[in-house]
């Protein structure tokens, strides 16, 4: 491996090294603040190294990694998301009596796993990245051991993720046996494969099994059953982490290797993906309607949002990949903001998850409520927010390729979705029931790190919603060479 190979791998190396350093630092002296600073510093250095390593792109490092502007773009998104989760996690953990420091080690490991996914080009690196991500997440979900609901969520995720991983592995094995290659590009080949060959059965079966594994991670219907329980049970920062870093990493891989173009749209994979998209959009939004827990609402809404992403991916064409990436960026920023607000409102020992915790919030904390409203409106896709332009790009990509069924499903389900976002908004602007029910969090001042994080996220939501040109060119440049 040459020097520039190492340079290209620098972001991955930095994040994994930081995890090791952090582990050693914890062994020497437990200190919550130091651990958080080291983790944040590592993520910051990782972000910086992206710029440093950019000149050596694009580059293939061994058979495992492909480092180009696309994987760097996704690494940047993942690292930014991780960097924004950490301040919220710091505030969250400060109020809890667990061992706090290992949280950051696990978060860094999971981030590394997601980054590996974004850069992998081989079955081996794909699976390694996925397991690195998943194993770290098992522990993170069950991190608050005093809460039985967290343990339950952790175990549920462990069982389901492990079985989906084995299904995925079997699928990979089938594809390997049929094609004799471990390259991820086999996915694209399998999708365009015509049924003339004898081993096409293996290929298509393998591809479907791989889709199950990926669909589980991204929570497409019908592989979504874990989502609400895990979202509800996991500590808030971890929920935010799953929604952004975990899904973002898997989606990066999915988008790169499951390019749909007009040749393979009518193939089995294209049809299956279309069905998944329609089912995810409708099911996610419909099931969210009757929830009373904000975490569960956002869990179901995340299922629907993955469906929207799938629409962009299925649209393909010149715009599809860029639209999907933009939508993902918008979603990551927005959902981080939403979970950030929830973290800020949570007190020691309890989370602001039930809808009642938000009653009259606007009259008590107007700014926090305004931020939360912005995030919800962005999720609903109201203009001037990131979510709207994301939807606009998805719709444009779909219209350019005449994917009308998907587009109309998207419209109808967006309208359904609006209803439950408005429900939360209504509760926030309703009169407070009576002063006696005011919870203790009202007296807590807003913690500084989380406030900065929220301000940055709100700014980003509006920036992405008003001035997309800034990001769009970079996204188009990065996604041009796909598919």
């Amino acid at each position, binding site marked *: 491996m040459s020097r520039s190979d190492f340079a290209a791998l620098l972001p991955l190396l930095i994040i994994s090294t930081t995890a090791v350093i952090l582990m050693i630092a914890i062994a020497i002296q437990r200190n919550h603040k130091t651990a958080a600073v080291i983790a944040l510093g590592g993520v910051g250095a990782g972000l910086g190294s992206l710029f440093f390593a950019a000149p050596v792109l694009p580059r293939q490092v061994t058979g495992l990694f492909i480092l180009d502007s696309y994987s760097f773009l996704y690494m940047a998104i993942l690292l930014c998301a991780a960097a924004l989760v950490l301040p919220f996690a710091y505030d969250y953990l400060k109020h809890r009596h667990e061992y706090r420091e290992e949280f950051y080690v696990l978060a860094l490991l999971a981030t590394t796993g997601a980054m590996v996914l974004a850069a992998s080009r081989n079955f081996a690196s794909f699976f390694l990245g996925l397991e690195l991500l998943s194993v770290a997440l098992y522990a993170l979900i069950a991190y608050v051991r005093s809460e039985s609901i967290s343990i339950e969520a952790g175990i549920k995720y462990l069982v389901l993720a492990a079985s989906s991983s084995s299904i995925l592995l079997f699928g990979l094995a089938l594809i390997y046996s049929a094609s004799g290659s471990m390259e991820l590009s086999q996915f694209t080949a399998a999708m365009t494969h015509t049924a003339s060959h004898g081993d096409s059965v293996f290929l298509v079966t393998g591809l479907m099994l791989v889709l199950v594994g990926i669909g589980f991670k991204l929570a497409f219907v019908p592989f979504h059953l874990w989502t609400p329980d895990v979202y509800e049970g996991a500590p808030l920062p971890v929920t935010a982490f799953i929604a952004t870093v975990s899904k973002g990493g898997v989606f990066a891989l999915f988008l790169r290797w499951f390019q749909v173009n007009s040749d393979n749209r009518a193939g089995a994979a294209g049809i299956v993906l279309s069905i998944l998209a329609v089912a995810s959009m409708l099911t996610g939004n419909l099931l969210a309607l009757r929830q009373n827990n904000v975490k569960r609402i956002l869990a179901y809404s995340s299922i629907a949002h993955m469906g929207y992403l799938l629409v962009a991916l299925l649209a393909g064409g010149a715009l599809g990949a860029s639209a999907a990436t933009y939508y993902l960026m918008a979603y990551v920023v927005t959902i981080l903001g939403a979970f950030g607000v929830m973290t800020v409102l949570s007190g020691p020992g309890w989370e602001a998850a039930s809808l009642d915790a938000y009653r009259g919030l606007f009259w008590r904390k107007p700014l926090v409520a305004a931020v939360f409203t912005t995030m919800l409106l962005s999720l609903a896709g*109201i203009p001037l927010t990131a979510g709207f332009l994301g939807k606009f790009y998805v719709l444009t990509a779909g219209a350019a390729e005449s994917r009308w069924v998907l587009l109309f499903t998207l419209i109808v389900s*967006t*309208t359904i979705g609006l209803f439950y976002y408005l429900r939360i908004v209504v509760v926030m602007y309703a009169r407070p029931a009576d002063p006696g029910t005011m919870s203790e969090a009202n007296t807590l001042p807003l913690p500084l790190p989380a406030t900065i994080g929220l301000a940055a996220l709100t700014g980003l939501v509006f920036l992405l919603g008003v001035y997309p*040109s800034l990001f769009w060119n970079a996204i188009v440049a990065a996604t041009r060479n796909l598919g």
Partner: protein
Amino acid sequence: MILPSLVLILIVGGIGSWIAARRSEVFARWIALGSVLADLSVCLGIWVGHLGRSQSTPKSWFVAFDLAWIPQFGIRIHLAIDGLSLALLLLTYFLGIMAILSSWTEIDERVGFFHFNLLWVLAGITGVFLAMDLFVFYLFWELMLVPMYFLIGIWGHERRIYAATKFFLFTQLSGLLMLVAIIALAVLHKQSTGIFTFDYEQLLETALTPRAARLLMLGFLVAFAVKLPAFPFHTWLPDAHTEAPTAGSVVLAGLLLKTGAYGMIRFVLPLFPGPSHELAPVLMTFGVIGILYGAVLAVGQTDLKRLVAYTSVSHMGFVLLGVFAGNETALEGAVVQMVSHGISTGALFILAGLLQERMHTREISAMGGLWETMPALSGAGMVFAMASLGLPGLGDFVGEFLVLLGAYRANVPLTVVATLGLLAATLYGLRFAVNAFQGPNPHHWQLPDMRPREWAMLGLMMACLLWIGLYPQPVLNSVRQSLAVAQQSTFPQEVVRR
């Protein structure tokens, strides 16, 4: 820079009055009033400056503004004003002032946030009337919704949440269909010319197959028909109008409904001339159904605001009839009807607000003999009821008369049936006036009469109605040019016949 500043003044004014309300509520009201007044005077300035020119320069904007925004998709902040936009903007700011004045004592909590929302709704409406880029148009179209939702949802009456949510969902779904139609139009334009643009003037040139044009037109039409509201899509309106606070009802009935009609005239007719022509009989029929249906239901209402809401459905039926009647007379009538309906219905909602503030009920049966205790207010109520039923000499008559005159040339049977709507209008107008104001005073109401502020509002509105009723020529002159453009593209043979 004049045009963006119209929007910006309202946006900044809204934020300003929100902040100012922490110190002094009165100050916040004055800031809101000041910003709308500023916009009104700017528009009046443009109007006075172009009074003579509107005839001479065919198809050109009075003032325009163009700035690249999202170059990758050819989206530009393109704002422009012509006679039609100008007339509707003047109406917007006039009613905006009335809305602020009418909530001067009615709204006493969260005053700052209220005026913030009110001004932002006005900003959205301003943008809708100005935008000449379809993307920007959609943006403003949606932007009106959120603050309106808050106006109804926070300061509304008993069933406000239900009404606000219904309003939002109806308009959002139809709006998204329009967005898809807009995007599809731009995509088709790109496929035929290679240029990605959302610019109105360039999209006018798009060559469409008849089938594509019909589908796209339906996308636009649904959004506008829901806003208007045309007959099958009207069900959100009675709830929203009834539950909204006075200012909200005034803005809804006076302005938001007009954006639907404006969209039909500005976008549906010129962009899709072929299908507009084809579908005109169907749409006119829906207009007539709306006229009768709204009027008949209005007769049966006991809640004053609900009654006025249903009269809106009826009056907007006339607008739909006029827009698709296919000749300039009817189209001009539709615009006059839009303006005068904005004023007369706005006034009726203000009146309902005044009565509710005094009596804490909107039930007509609880009223009666109010002339005894409030002669001035009852007199004003009488005038506006008469305007609403189409008494000659007041604005609504001119609009309805021109619409019927034009529609008669297009379709005689429909026009005859539509005329029956005027009959029902007489019924509901007189029934309301008699039950509320005339006769004995069975409930022994003792109420204060109008205050100077209320006098000023209703007096001004009355003067405007009289002006349009007696001398509508200035309004007609200023909109004629823009209407002719819309007209020519869709129904060219009619113009020749004139």
